[in-house]
């Protein structure tokens, strides 16, 4: 689940984390989700107690000499939720307004995501409280290296494997890796994922999340006896996940009638619609590096430009929210057309539980985010494996394995959902949590 991007930011930091906004606590929500499923699974109290909270939380100070000669102290952190199934996995983010409970919730969701995808990894999350817009490249590098120096003993290829996240990139990962290797005195490409291909990254990573979503959609449509070549979809978003999802969906013969994006200049979102289906290449050509589609060019190419929220009201078979959290909520879910049969979540947390309840009553199948967008973490796992072996696979091998893994994950969830007559997201949680609980039991932790 992503923290809402608040454009205002504060310089400097006080305390470890900011206080939560009133009313909404993501960690509480994550725990509530967990509790509900734990009830279903009839988990014992000890296991619940173990899984409701992260195993370890680290917070520390990172003193940095800034470019202007001044000294600043930044706060860094890392939360390791559970590593019974394998080393922790999760992103490192830069954000000026990170909250403790958000990070805890995110690390917990990573545990479930890795578990439902059946990869041998646990969940973690962390980062540094800062605003990289206010930092030069050198300062960012120092920050990354400083972070590693504090936490090096508690991360590593067999311990905790970070990755890029909000406002961090492959370059940050390489600095982190480099610093770690200097400290440890060896080559540890398996420390971190999200590296560029030239320096140990996995081929296929760019496409993985988007493709992974479509592999799941493909199998779902087969189960629903819908011919993918005759289905239409509307996408919220036009970033990495949305684009690659659109690409593969179109290759399979489906039609995307609309995409939406944030317009940087107008500070607003727009939806770009074409009844006969978008042409992905032509749209990508008129999109800038921030992900904004040029409105005027799009109109010239025959696209209808509508307010961003209109993506939800398209008369299509499939909705793919692949941008923001909480984009389908109780207040707008009723605008979804009766034709829609599938909502598959490319973004994190795009549907609220109330909206999902409503959709379930309408017979719409909702594929939860942590299953649908697990392609990314699966590919990260592949990167970790390749790095540790120092043996890198072809793209075909990566994508072929990804396809098979996502397909397996889907079928297990689907089968359970049908057998127990529960919704798909519950089935996914049940599988995820029970696997982790089992691992804890086998280790003798509970």
């Amino acid at each position, binding site marked *: 689940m992503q923290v809402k991007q608040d454009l205002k930011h504060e310089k400097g930091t006080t305390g470890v984390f900011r206080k939560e906004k009133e009313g909404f606590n993501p960690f509480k929500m994550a725990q509530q989700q967990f509790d509900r499923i734990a009830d279903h699974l009839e988990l014992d109290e000890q296991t619940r107690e173990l899984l409701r909270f992260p195993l370890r939380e680290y917070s520390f100070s990172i003193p940095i000499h800034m470019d202007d000669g001044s000294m600043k102290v930044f706060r860094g952190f890392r939360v390791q939720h559970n590593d019974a199934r394998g080393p922790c996995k999760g992103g490192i983010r830069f954000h000026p307004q990170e909250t403790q409970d958000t990070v805890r919730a995110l690390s917990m969701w990573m545990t479930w995501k890795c578990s439902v995808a059946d990869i041998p990894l646990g969940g973690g999350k962390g980062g540094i409280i800062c605003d990289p817009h206010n930092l030069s490249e050198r300062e960012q590098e120092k920050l990354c290296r400083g972070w590693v120096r504090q936490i090096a003993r508690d991360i590593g290829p067999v311990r905790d494997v970070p990755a890029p996240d909000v406002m961090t990139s492959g370059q940050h990962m390489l600095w982190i890796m480099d610093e770690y290797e200097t400290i440890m005195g060896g080559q540890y490409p398996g420390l971190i994922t999200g590296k560029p291909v030239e320096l140990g990254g996995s081929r296929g990573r760019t496409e993985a999340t988007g493709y992974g979503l479509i592999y799941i959609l493909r199998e779902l449509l087969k189960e629903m006896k819908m011919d993918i070549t005759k289905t239409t979809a509307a996408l919220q978003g036009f970033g990495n996940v949305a684009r690659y999802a659109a690409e593969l969906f179109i290759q399979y013969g489906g039609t995307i009638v609309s995409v939406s994006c944030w317009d940087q200049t107008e500070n607003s979102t727009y939806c770009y619609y074409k009844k006969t289906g978008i042409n992905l290449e032509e749209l990508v050509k008129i999109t800038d590096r921030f992900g904004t589609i040029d409105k005027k060019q799009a109109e010239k190419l025959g696209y209808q430009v509508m307010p961003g929220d209109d993506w939800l009201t398209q008369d299509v078979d499939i909705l793919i929210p692949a941008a923001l959290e909480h984009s389908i909520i109780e207040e707008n879910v009723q605008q979804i057309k009766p034709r829609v049969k599938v909502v598959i979540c490319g973004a994190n947390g795009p549907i609220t539980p109330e909206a999902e309840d409503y959709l379930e009553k309408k017979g719409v199948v909702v594929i939860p985010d942590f299953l649908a967008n697990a392609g990314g973490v699966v590919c990260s796992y592949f990167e970790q494996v390749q790095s540790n072996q120092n043996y890198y696979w*072809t793209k075909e091998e990566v994508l072929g394995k990804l396809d098979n893994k996502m397909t397996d994950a889907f079928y297990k969830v689907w089968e359970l959902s049908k057998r127990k007559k529960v919704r798909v997201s519950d089935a996914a949680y049940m599988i995820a949590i029970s696997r982790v609980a089992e691992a804890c039991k086998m280790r003798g932790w509970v």
Partner: protein
Amino acid sequence: MNIQFNDKEKKIISCIEEITGITPSIVKQQELEKEQHVEPYYIKEILLISSSFHFFQLEEEGRLSFLLQEYTASYGRKSLPKITHVESKEDCINLLMNQPFDLVIIFDKINDIDSYILGKQIKTITDIPIVLLGNSITELMKVEEINTENIFNKIVTWNGDGKIILTIIQLIEDTVNIHKDQQLANHGRYVLLIEDSIQYYSSYLLLLYDEIHGFLQSMLSDSLSEEQLVLRLSTRPVLLHVQDFDAAEQLYHTNKKRIIGIITDNNLDRGGNKTSRVGEKIAQFIESDKLNIPILIQSSEPHKGNLPEGLQLRFVSKKEPTLALIIKDFINECLGPREIVLKDSNQKEIFRIRNMNDLENAVLSVNDSILTSAIDQHIFSRWLRVRGEADLADKIQSIETEIHKADELRKQLIDVLEQYKYAQTQSSVTPFDRTSLPSHLEINRIGNGALGGKARGLSFLAKLVSKYISDDMFPNLRISIPRTLVISTDIFDAFLKQNSLPSDELFVLPDERIALKFMSANLPATVLGDLRTFIHNTRKPLVVRSSGVLEDSLLQSFAGIYDSILLPNESWETDFRFQDVCNAVKYVYASTFFEKARTYIKSTPKNIGDEKMAVIIQEVIGQKHETFFYPAISGVAKSFNYYPSGGCKQEEGIVYLALGLGKAIVDGGSTFGFCPESPTIPLFGTPKNFMRYAQRKFYALNLKSVYRIVERNEETSYSILGIDDARRHGILDKIASTYVRQDDSLYPGIYEGGSLVIDFGPITQYDAIPLAKALKLLLRISEMTLGYPVEIEFALNLSMTDSEKSELVILQIRSMVPPGRTSDIVIGDFNEDTDLCYSENALGNGIFDTIQDIVYVKPSFDMSNSPQVVGQVRSFNLKLMGEKKPYILIGPGRWGSADHWLGIPVIWSDIAGVKVIIETPFKERAIDPSQGSHFFHDLISSQVGYIITKEDKRNISMKWLESLPFVEEMPDVRHVRLLDPLEVRIDGKQGKAVIRLRKSNK
């Protein structure tokens, strides 16, 4: 079961009876053969005249586009009907005058346009159907009153639901198609609506269309191939509507056998023509015809009098508030069950059967009482029948009638369903399904494009075998095709597009570089998951072959032009095997652009851009012996023999066999030939003569080899084994004979104290395996079905135990170009004065009288030099092809042989411009005609004459050749040119040839 066979089928059946003594029980399938199938009538272009508001309504609220898409999908149409919208009369008329349309739809009350006058005007331009739509019934009724000339085929009210357009389209199409589409006419199920009130029939049409459409969806809910889809669609429910009694009567009488239900108004009043008690009149027809057609009569007036008894007749008042529901229930009863719900004694639902898979699962899992109860009610057969599976329904019905014990029932039902599934999968190419395990031998596909020639050939073979051949025909031999996956041409297109291939620079690169470029690119993501799953489940060696659209389409020969890759597939790691296969597929794609292919395509009417490549991945047929893999026997069978001998006729065909992999045959190595009509007759001298040339070595796949595709180190993949190895592997007992020196005799089988000879004696002499009979049957029925001679490639696995069957697996089928057209080529006896060359051993047919150039191998040539000759010949060929001059090629030994000691080892593209080849004698040895199959195949399909001469005066004179002025000379080969063309005559039927001089040349 009364099955109608056409003449061809009757001939095939009697051929099968003659050869096997068994009458085949044929699963009657309606074939989509080109000469039988007529494309149904489809409305493709619709002109819609309405206000923009109405059109907007139709599009938005009426969801017209979406409905059209869905509609297209349901009825198996290839494309959407296209709607052109206009608002004005002028535009309408203009368009109609300049463009073809199939239907005009007019919305009433468009501004100030009088619909009727417009309709009349349209009728002066074109005769296509016109339909009037409107909101106001009163207005529409006014138009109807004046519509005496039938300007409007239909007048319908519209309530905003776009489905009305679909209903209209379907109605009009079906009214035509019940006459045009033979399949629909013979198998469709008709629902007749007789109603004259616009208000009522407009709503009934929508209601009935909805139910029929829903029923159709359930009919098609199995995973069906295109042929199965067409078959099912031919039995679909069809809605027909008439408004007056005369039309109703005619429709009834013409189609009564196909009508499954009638809904009729009891009083009709059309154009002043009143008819009352219509329903009863129709009911009387039904009664006198002794048919069992349900009829629903509705009327605004209460019914008087008695209705005929004993019929499925119902009466309902139009004022009945639940009228729509009653009609809905009625039509659903007529259509039959969409699904089966099995309940236990407490009426609790146990199983719901919606498709064939569900049926199979139900039969396996429900308890005895539920099963027997379903059987007693004939639930299954009824459901199958309305689903369009008449044959299967018949079989199940007989089980339902005859068997009542649960155990036996279950077994029989499963058997029948398995057979059905087997026949379905054998007879068509079905999409690859990861979730179903490979339990049958079947052809699967990945992708939606074309399958290419080889795959079509395989599919044809599969159909042939499943239709005509049953297990009991050859007791210890099973006939099948190899497990095959086809990656269709759209994947090739996507691959090229995604990787920006081919680029211009590609065409100047050598083949290896082209291959590397292709192999460093990536296959489309859409294929990877399925391919990986296929590889994961397949542990046998694989062959990856091309199946080009231009290739081997039974009629054209591209044999051997594109590359095949043989993969041991031995690694325990799925990833290694998967990557090997990906690379192999890409290599095959690359071979489309190799020099060999480019040169070859130039000699055909096609362009390189025309070629689209599908790829076949097949399991190699064979068995594992130690670290080697090979079939006991490989072979090629031809239904026409160009080298008849031993008293066998050309039409009786010939079979060539080799121990081990078929590479031995393809490369022109030593093989054994026999005639399938008379397998015991030796064709190449006595068996003892044959011994000298019998196979001593054979090819096997080395499972431990490391095969690197680009290095083309086939030699590493293939191992050459000897007879002793085969003996040790225990496969020779049906393949070898034993030569006993003391007796100077050859005994079929293995005996101590002699040397083994691979002459397949036990099979040809003792029929140890009914191979000859099976091949004879396959050749004959293939030839009959296709209408021309064929060549079949096959492999045989011998059974290792008595209880197992041996397996004859058919790998490919190709056409042999038909031998000689007519026998108006008269060749008399040898005339020393006029004939330059005369032979009674010639291949090909025709008169070639434009050839002036001769390329010949000099007499000083030594066979050890034959590889060098290839280059010299090739350069002459290139030159002459460039000058567009056909030529005669003369040389000793077997042209095209891979063994350079036996002949010049050219490949076809080295001599692609040749018109006639003369093979001169080379050391006195019996010529075993080169079974360099590809070479000869191309030779035949290029209509090249092949003349074999003997060492006698009829042979072409070297002295004469050497006296001619040469154009160019190389160390071993010379090119000469005559002033006037020679005349070459070849009579393919007689196998005679003569080359004559013109006077000026002598």
